C-alpha cells in the first residue's frame, strides 16, 4: 500500500533532540537484533516478538508524552519499554528471566512492567490492555488529575469486542485516553484485508465520535508531532483521541513464524522506508548529522546493548522458594 505524503511537522527540530530520537531508535534496533541472536543461543525462551521496523512509533510517541502519563502496551513492547526509559539492562534481564528483570523474571518478553515510569505492562491477550487503559483514565478523571493514558495496540485488536467496548466507554465518559493503534498490516499472519471489512482503521474510532487520524508510523517526527497534538487535546479534557500509526514489522511475527503469508517483495518495499536510515538521511541532508556523529550514535547504542547483555548475564535467578511470592499482596 502507499502512504500519502504528510506535511512537514510543526515542531522546530533541535539538533540534540534529533540525535536523541535517532539514538533511541538505534538502541531498539540493535537491542532487538541482539535479542534474536540470544534467542537462537537459547538465552531467551518462550515467545519473542521483535519491534524491528516499528521503532519510530514508540520513540516518537514517548518523546511526546510526559513522565506523569501512563503507558499500556502489548506483547510486542520492548520498543515502548526502552523508549519510556526502562533501563535496557532491566528489559534484557527480564527476557533472560532473571530477578533483576523489570518484572523479576515473572513476565518475560511479553510482560514488562515498571511502576516508577508508570509503565503498566505488556498485555498478551490482543485488546486486553484497552479496558485497563480506560480504567486508568477513569481514575485520573475521578481524582481530578490532568494526565494522559497512552494505550498501544496492534491493528489486529480492532477485531476484538474489547476494542469496541473500550473506545465506546472512553468516548461516552470523555476519558483522557490516547489510543495508539500500531497498524503493521498483519495480525500474526492474517493480512488486514483478510480480517476487516473496513481497513481504514481510524474510521472505526470516528464512528464512536472519537477524534481520529492516521499518521505515517515510519516517520519519527510525524509520530512525535501527532502524539504531541493528540496528547495536548486529551490533557485539555477534550476526551479520547485515536491515532492510527501506519508501520510495518520487518521481521517475522515471532521467532516461530516462517512468514508464509507475505512476499519478500512486500517486505523489501517497506524496508526502503526503514525509519532509521530515512531519518538519518533526512538529518544529514538538513545539515544536522555528520557521518562521524552517526557513527558515534551507533557505537553508543551498541554499548548500551552490550551493557544490557552483561547485566542480564550477571543477574541472579529468583530463588524457587519465592515461586509463590506476589500472588497476593503482603498485608
Amino acid at each position: 500500500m502507499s502512504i500519502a505524503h504528510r506535511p512537514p511537522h510543526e515542531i522546530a527540530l533541535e539538533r540534540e533532540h534529533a540525535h536523541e530520537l535517532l539514538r533511541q531508535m538505534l538502541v531498539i534496533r540493535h537491542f532487538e537484533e541482539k535479542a534474536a541472536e540470544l534467542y537462537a543461543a537459547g538465552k531467551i525462551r518462550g515467545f519473542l516478538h521483535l519491534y524491528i521496523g516499528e521503532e519510530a512509533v514508540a520513540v516518537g510517541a514517548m518523546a511526546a508524552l510526559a513522565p506523569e502519563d501512563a503507558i499500556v502496551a502489548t506483547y510486542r513492547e520492548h520498543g515502548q519499554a526502552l523508549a519510556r526509559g526502562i533501563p535496557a539492562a532491566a528489559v534484557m534481564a527480564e527476557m533472560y528471566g532473571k530477578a533483576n528483570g523489570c518484572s523479576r523474571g515473572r513476565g518475560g518478553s511479553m510482560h514488562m512492567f515498571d511502576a516508577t515510569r508508570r509503565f503498566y505492562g505488556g498485555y498478551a491477550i490482543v485488546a486486553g490492555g484497552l479496558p485497563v487503559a480506560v480504567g486508568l483514565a477513569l481514575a485520573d478523571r475521578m481524582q481530578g488529575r490532568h494526565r494522559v493514558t497512552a494505550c498501544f495496540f496492534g491493528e489486529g485488536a480492532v477485531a476484538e469486542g474489547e476494542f469496541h467496548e473500550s473506545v465506546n466507554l472512553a468516548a461516552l465518559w470523555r476519558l483522557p485516553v490516547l489510543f495508539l493503534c500500531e497498524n503493521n498490516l498483519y495480525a500474526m499472519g492474517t493480512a488486514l484485508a483478510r480480517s476487516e471489512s473496513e481497513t481504514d482503521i481510524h474510521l472505526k474510532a470516528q464512528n464512536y465520535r472519537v477524534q481520529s487520524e492516521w499518521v505515517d508510523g515510519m516517520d519519527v517526527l510525524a509520530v512525535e508531532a501527532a502524539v504531541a497534538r493528540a496528547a495536548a487535546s486529551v490533557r485539555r479534557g477534550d476526551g479520547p483521541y485515536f491515532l492510527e500509526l501506519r508501520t510495518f514489522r520487518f521481521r517475522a511475527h515471532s521467532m516461530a513464524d516462517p512468514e508464509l503469508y507475505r512476499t519478500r517483495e512486500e517486505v523489501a518495499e517497506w524496508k526502503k522506508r526503514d525509519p532509521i536510515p530515512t531519518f538519518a538521511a533526512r538529518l544529514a541532508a538538513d545539515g544536522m548529522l555528520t557521518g562521524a556523529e552517526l557513527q558515534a550514535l551507533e557505537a553508543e547504542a551498541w554499548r548500551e546493548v552490550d551493557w544490557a547483555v552483561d547485566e542480564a548475564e550477571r543477574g541472579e535467578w529468583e530463588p524457587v522458594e519465592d515461586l509463590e511470592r506476589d500472588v497476593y499482596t503482603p498485608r
Partner: protein
Amino acid sequence: MAKTTYREAVRAALREAMRADPRVFLMGEDVGRYGGAFAVSLGLLDEFGPERIRDTPLSESGFLGAGIGAALGGMRPIVEIMTVNFSLLSLDQLVNNAATLRHMSGGQFSVPLVVRMASGGGRSLAAQHSHSFEGWYAHVPGIKVVTPATVADAKGLLLAALTEPDPVVILEHATLYPLEGDDTPDEPMQIGLAAVRRPGQHVTLVTYGGSLPKTLAAADALAKEGIEAEVIDLRTLRPLDIDTVLASVAKTHRAVVVDEMWKTGSFAAEVMAQIMERAFDELDAPVARVCSREVPMPYAKHLEEAALPQAGQIVTAAKGLL
C-alpha cells in the same frame, strides 16, 4: 429490632463504604437509575450521584477491565456484574489481568478491585441466568472468592473485601436477597474463615452460599430422627479454611459436601479431595456430595427443582454414611 434483608445489608455496606472513602465507587449495568437488577443499589444514585454510582453499557469485559485500571489508578472500584452467567463475558479481564498483574509485574502492581455478581438457580430463569461457577473463580490464584450466605456476612464480607489489596469476587446467591436477619456488623469481617452454623457430632455437612438454607433445613430434619449434623458454611472459597472442616470431620468422621455446581468438577470435589488428602484416617465412610444434576438449568419449576440440590437429598446422603 427491625429485620434487615440480605439485599439491604449489601446496600448498607455499599453506602457506608462510599461515605467513608471517596475512592469507593460502584459501576455496572443498571446500578444507577434502575436501582440495580436486584434492587441492591436502589437509592444510592440520589446520595452519591452518577460519577460514583456509574451506569455502564452492556460491556462486561470493558467495564470490568476499567475497574482493574481504576484500581491501578488509586480508586477502590466495586464492579457489579448482573449475573454469574454474564460474568463469563468478562472472564478475560478477571483471569488474564486482575488475577495475574501482581505476580506478572514482579510485585509492582496490586489490583484492589471488588467484583460482585448474583449467582445460582431456583428462580425459573432457565439456562443462561441460573448457573453456579464459583468453583471456576476459586480455581484461579491471585483472586479471592467470597460467598456470603447470611445477612450479616452480606455486609461484613463486602466491607472486608474493600479492605483487601487484591481482587475479590463476591457471589451473592440470588435467592438470598429477600432473606431476613437481625444483626449486621458495623466493622469488616475477615475473609478466609469458615463458620460452624450448627454444632453436631454425627455427621458434617459442608456448604456455602445459596445451599446453606437447604443444608440447615436438612440438619433440622435429621435432628428429628436423632441425627445431629454439624453444618459448616465455608464463606470464603479461596483462600479455603479447610482446617475448620477437618476439625469437624475429626469429631464426626463423616462428611457430606453440598453445592449447586454441576457434580463433575464441582467445588465440592475440591473439598472432598482435601478431606481425603488430610483426614483419610478420620473417615468412617466415604465423603459424599450433593450437587446439581448435569443438565443446563431447565425452565419448568418441577424440572429445575429436580436439577438443584434439595434438603431431602442431603438428608438421604447423610443417612447413607451412618
